């Protein structure tokens, strides 16, 4: 038996009012992170013991800079979706929950932008 109104069923947004968007984006970013994190591990291994000049010139390669920015964006997008669920599960006070979510999401954005800025600065010859 389906107790939803026809309009609600067509919209498919459910009680959380956002439908399956969170679920989908978490999966999409997860799939993006499969090749990106393997690349990152390869990159870190290839840079073991490298000095500042070596790592800088490595990051000045367009491919490495673009992949590093993509890694940052996918990582922080995936991260804030995951931590959102953790906060929603464990923090029950409505005010504390909203404050925690804002700090976590804001912090993720700050780190993503700071990391991207650093990559661009190095890539453009900072």
């Amino acid at each position: 038996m389906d107790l939803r109104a026809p309009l609600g069923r067509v919209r498919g947004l459910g009680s959380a009012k956002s439908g399956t968007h969170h679920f989908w984006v978490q999966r999409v970013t997860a799939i993006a992170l499969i090749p990106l994190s393997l690349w990152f591990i390869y990159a870190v291994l290839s840079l073991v013991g490298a000095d500042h000049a070596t790592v800088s010139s490595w990051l000045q390669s367009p491919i490495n800079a673009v992949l590093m920015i993509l890694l940052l964006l996918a990582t922080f997008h995936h991260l804030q979706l995951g931590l959102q669920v953790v906060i929603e599960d464990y923090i029950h006070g409505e005010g504390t929950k909203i404050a925690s979510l804002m700090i976590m999401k804001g912090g993720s954005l700050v780190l993503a932008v700071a990391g991207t800025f650093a990559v661009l600065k190095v890539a453009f010859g900072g």
Partner: protein
Amino acid sequence: MNNGDRPLSPHLQIYAWQWTMALSILHRATGTGLAAGTLLMVWWLLALADGAASFDTVQTVIGSVVGRLCLFGWTWALFYHFCNGIRHLFWDVGMGFDLDTARNSGYFVVAASIGLTGLTWIVGYMAMGAI
């Protein structure tokens, strides 16, 4: 309506620990740990952008005993979350739900994460010329 003495659903403590349950919690724990690890990643990038002095400071911190232990933990957390995340993606398309497969894929994920961590560190030390 009296809400006070309604029966509550059983909480976590009442269940006997199971392999699949421990791995599920571990997925969340490693994800949270990796989130903390992004602080180091961004610090490393910012230091690289700031110049050689800052970069050397980060490299010294990472290269210290505590730094290497943290990095080792993060390597395993990354591989575990990576492998178990792929296990989750199979579940998302409806595959591997029967009990034997779910348990065996769990064993495989743990073994793979340990193996990949070991392999990564062996390659890393070989790249340094330490072994």
